[in-house]
C-alpha cells in the first residue's frame, strides 16, 4: 500500500508539472485586483464593475499588453467578490494584497466595504482606488487610498446653486433615507449649502424615511404644505420612482431634483413618464455624450446590452487612471514594495487626467477635484447633458 501511495504522489507530481507548464503565465505579468460586490445586496454594482474591467482588459490585450517604459507587460485581473459585506471586503483585500500580490486594487465600490478595505490597503502599503465610495473616511489619513467620484461636500452646493438659478427657488424641501449613509450625508450637505445661501429656515421641510419604506405620502403631504419650491431627494433608483409618482398623485407639480444615485438605466424603466423633465447631478451624461464617453457607452451597450450607469463609467476611469499611473511609473522592477510605492506616487502626481466622467486631479487626501454634470431626463427617457458645474 505504501508503494501505491508513493507511486500515486509521484504520478501527481509529474502531472502537476506538465499541466502547469502549459497553464502557467510568464514573469512579466502585472496583476490588478478588483474588489467588487458580485453577490449580496447590490450585485448590479458588481456587474458594472466587472464588465468595465473586462472591457479594459480587452483593450490592453488587443494592444499586446501594457506598455511600461518600452516593455510590454501582460495584465491579469484578479476579481474578488466582497458579497457587499465589510468582513468579506477586508478578507478579499488581504487576499489580493498578500496572496495574489496585486500591484494595486480597484474597489470596493460602496463605502460600507471601502472604508474597512481601505484600512487594509493602507496598512499593507498597497495603492487602492475606490471608484464609487463617497464616505470621507475612505481616504482620510490614508496616503495609499484614492477615489474617483467627487465628494458629497462638493455635490451638495452644486445642486443648491443649480436649483437657485434654474428654478429661482428660495425654499427647499428634502426627502431622504435616514438609515443609509449616502443619502443622509448628502441631504445634510445640501441643507447646509442652501441655508448658507438663503439663511436659517430656508429648508422648509427636512423629511426622512427608513430604507425599504414604500409609502412616502405622509412626508410628501408635509412637504407640499410647507410651500417649498422644489424637492431634493438623493435616493436610489428603486425609491425615486415611488417618490416621484406619489408626489404627482398628491398634486405636486413643482420640480424634483436628484443626485448621482439617480443615474441608473433602471430609473426610467421604473418611473415611466413621471420622471420626464426632472434634473439630477451626476458624473456623466449618457445621452448626447461625445468623444471618448460616447465611445465607451456605445461599446458597453453593444457588448452587454444596456447603457452603463455611473459605476461602470467611474470604474472605467479608475482603470485608466491606474494604467496612467503605472505607465508614469516608468518601469516595473518586480519588487512589489518598490513598484507599489512608485504607483502610489504616480497616482498622487496625476494632473488633469481626461476621463469620461470629466477631468480630474487628486488632492493630497486622495480625493479628485472634478466637475459635476447636471442631467435632464428627456421626454424619451434619456439622460441628457444639461450643464456642467466645476469647482
Amino acid at each position, binding site marked *: 500500500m505504501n508503494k501505491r501511495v508513493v507511486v500515486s504522489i509521484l504520478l501527481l507530481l509529474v502531472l502537476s*508539472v506538465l499541466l502547469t507548464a502549459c497553464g502557467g503565465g510568464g514573469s512579466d505579468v502585472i496583476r490588478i485586483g478588483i474588489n467588487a460586490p458580485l453577490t449580496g445586496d447590490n450585485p448590479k454594482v458588481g456587474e458594472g464593475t466587472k464588465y468595465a474591467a473586462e472591457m479594459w482588459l480587452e483593450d490592453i490585450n488587443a494592444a499586446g499588453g501594457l506598455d511600461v517604459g518600452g516593455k510590454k507587460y501582460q495584465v491579469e485581473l484578479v476579481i474578488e467578490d466582497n458579497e457587499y459585506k465589510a468582513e468579506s471586503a477586508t478578507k478579499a483585500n*488581504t487576499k489580493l494584497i498578500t496572496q495574489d500580490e496585486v500591484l494595486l486594487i480597484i474597489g470596493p465600490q460602496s463605502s460600507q466595504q471601502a472604508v*474597512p478595505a481601505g484600512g487594509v490597503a493602507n496598512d499593507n502599503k498597497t495603492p487602492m482606488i475606490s471608484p464609487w465610495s463617497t464616505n470621507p473616511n475612505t481616504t482620510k489619513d490614508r496616503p495609499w487610498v484614492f477615489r474617483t467620484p467627487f465628494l458629497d461636500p462638493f455635490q451638495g452646493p452644486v445642486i443648491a446653486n443649480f436649483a437657485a438659478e434654474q428654478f429661482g427657488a428660495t425654499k427647499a424641501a428634502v426627502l431622504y433615507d435616514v*438609515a443609509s449613509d449616502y443619502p*443622509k450625508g448628502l441631504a445634510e450637505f445640501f441643507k447646509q449649502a442652501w441655508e448658507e445661501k438663503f439663511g436659517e429656515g430656508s429648508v422648509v421641510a427636512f423629511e426622512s424615511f427608513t430604507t425599504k419604506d414604500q409609502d412616502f405620502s405622509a412626508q410628501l403631504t408635509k412637504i407640499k404644505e410647507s410651500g417649498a419650491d422644489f424637492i431634493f431627494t438623493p435616493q436610489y433608483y428603486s425609491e425615486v420612482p415611488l417618490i416621484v409618482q406619489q408626489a404627482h398623485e398628491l398634486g405636486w407639480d413643482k420640480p424634483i431634483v436628484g443626485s448621482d444615485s439617480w443615474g441608473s438605466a433602471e430609473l426610467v424603466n421604473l418611473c415611466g413618464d413621471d420622471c420626464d423633465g426632472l434634473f439630477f447631478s451626476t458624473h456623466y451624461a449618457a445621452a448626447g455624450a461625445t468623444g471618448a464617453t460616447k465611445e465607451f457607452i456605445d461599446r458597453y451597450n453593444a457588448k452587454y446590452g444596456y447603457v452603463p450607469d455611473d459605476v461602470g463609467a467611474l470604474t472605467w476611469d479608475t482603470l485608466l487612471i491606474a494604467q496612467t499611473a503605472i505607465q508614469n511609473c516608468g518601469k516595473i522592477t518586480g519588487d512589489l514594495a518598490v513598484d507599489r510605492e512608485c504607483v502610489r506616487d504616480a497616482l498622487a502626481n496625476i494632473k488633469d487626467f481626461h476621463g469620461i466622467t470629466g477631468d480630474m486631479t487628486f488632492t493630497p487626501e486622495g480625493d479628485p477635484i472634478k466637475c459635476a454634470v447636471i442631467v435632464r431626463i428627456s421626454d424619451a427617457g434619456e439622460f441628457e447633458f444639461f450643464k456642467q458645474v466645476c469647482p
Partner: protein
Amino acid sequence: MTAQTIQESKKGRRFRLWWQSVWSRFDDVPLLGWLVGALVAVGLEYAVGRPFAQLLGMRKSPALFGFLFILKEPWLIPSAIVYVAVMYILPIAAVAKVTAAVANKTAAAMLRISTLLSVAIHLVLLYAVLHIWTDVLPYRLIVVKLTLIAIVITLSLNVVNGYMGEFSCSHPGFISLGAYGASVVTILLFDDPGPWLFPLALIVGGIVAAIGALLVAIPSFRTRGDYLAIISLAFTFIIKSFMENMEFVGGPRGLGGQPNWASLPVVFVVTIIAIWVINNFVRSILGKALNAVRDNEAAADAMTVNTRRTKMTAFLFSAFWAGVAGGLLAHVLAFINPASFGLQKLAEVLAMVYFGGLNSVVGSIVGAVSLNLLGEMLRPLEIWKWIVIPLMLILMMIYRPTGLVAFKEFDIVALLQPKKTTKGDE
C-alpha cells in the same frame, strides 16, 4: 443495472475498509501527538513552503489548501493535492505515528501532575500551530481571526437557541451593541489609550450587550416560541435604527479607526476563555436547569427550578459573550456600521449554530469553523456559492435535523487522555 450497483457498492466497501485500515493505524495517537505533528507540518511549510509551491507551478503556498484557485485554475489541482499531501498529511501522519508512544506517556504524565497543566500545554501547542500557519500568509491570519470570533458568537447563541431551546433572533443586536460599546471606549472616551484598555473595552462591550438583553428579556420572557422570536427580531431592528440615529457614533456612516489591538494572541485567548466559561456554564447545575426548562418548563418549575431566573441568567450570559465577540470584531475590521448587523448577520449566525449542532459546544466550534472556511474556500464560485452552501444546509436539515455534532458534552479531560489500547474512536 443491479450488477453495476453491486459492483459499485463493492468498490465503496473496499474503499471504506481500506480507509478504516489506514485510520486504525492511528488509533493509538493522542491529541498531543496530532498537535506535535501539526506543529512539525506548519514548521516545514514555514521553512520550505514557498519554494516547494513554486516548484509545483504555484506562485505562493496555497492559503486554504488550494481551494481558492483550483476552482478557477483547474490545471493546478494536482499541484494542490501534492502540496497538501507533502506539506500537511504526510508529516502529520508520520510524526504522529512515530511520536505516538512518547506522546502517550507524556500525556499521561501531564494529566497525573495536573489537568490544568495538560490543558495549558495543549493550548500552547495549538496556538503555536496557528501562529506559524498564519505567519506564512497574512490572508490566513484574517481568516483565522474572524473564524475564532465566529466561534464565540456561535457558542453564545447556542446557549439560548440550543441549551435553552428558544429561538432568539436578537444576536446581531447584541453583537452590534458590543461592537459599539467597545469602540466607544477605545475611540471616543480616551485620548491616547493603551492596549491595556482593550480587555476593559471588551468587558464594557459585553456589559452593554447584556443590558440590551435585559431590556429585551423583561417584556419578552412572558412569551415563548414564535413570539419570542418575533420580539427578539424586532430588537435587532431597533438596535440598528438606534445606531443609525446616534450621531456621536457616526450614524449610518459607521464608526472607524479602532486601534489595531485584536491581534491573533488576543483573539485566541478571548476565544479560549469564552469556550472554557461557556462550557463550564452549560455543564453546571444552571446549565442542566436550562435543559430542564427547555424540555418542560412546567415540570422544571415543579422540580424547584427557578425558571425565570434561569432563563434570564442564560440570556444575559449569552448576550455578554456576543458583545465581547462584537468588540473583537470591531477591532479586527477597524470599522463598524449599523447595516452590518442586520438580517444577513442573523442568517449567518443561525446557520452556524444549526449546522454545527444544537446543545453542543463542539458542535458550535465545528459549525463556525466549517461554515467560515467553506464560505472562504467557495468564494471564487461567486453566485454559485449561494446555491452550494444553502443546499448543504438543506441536506443537513433533512439528514441530521439537529446539526452535525448535536447534544454532545465537551469533555476536555477525555480529549486529552492518552490512547494506549486500540479502542474505536469514540
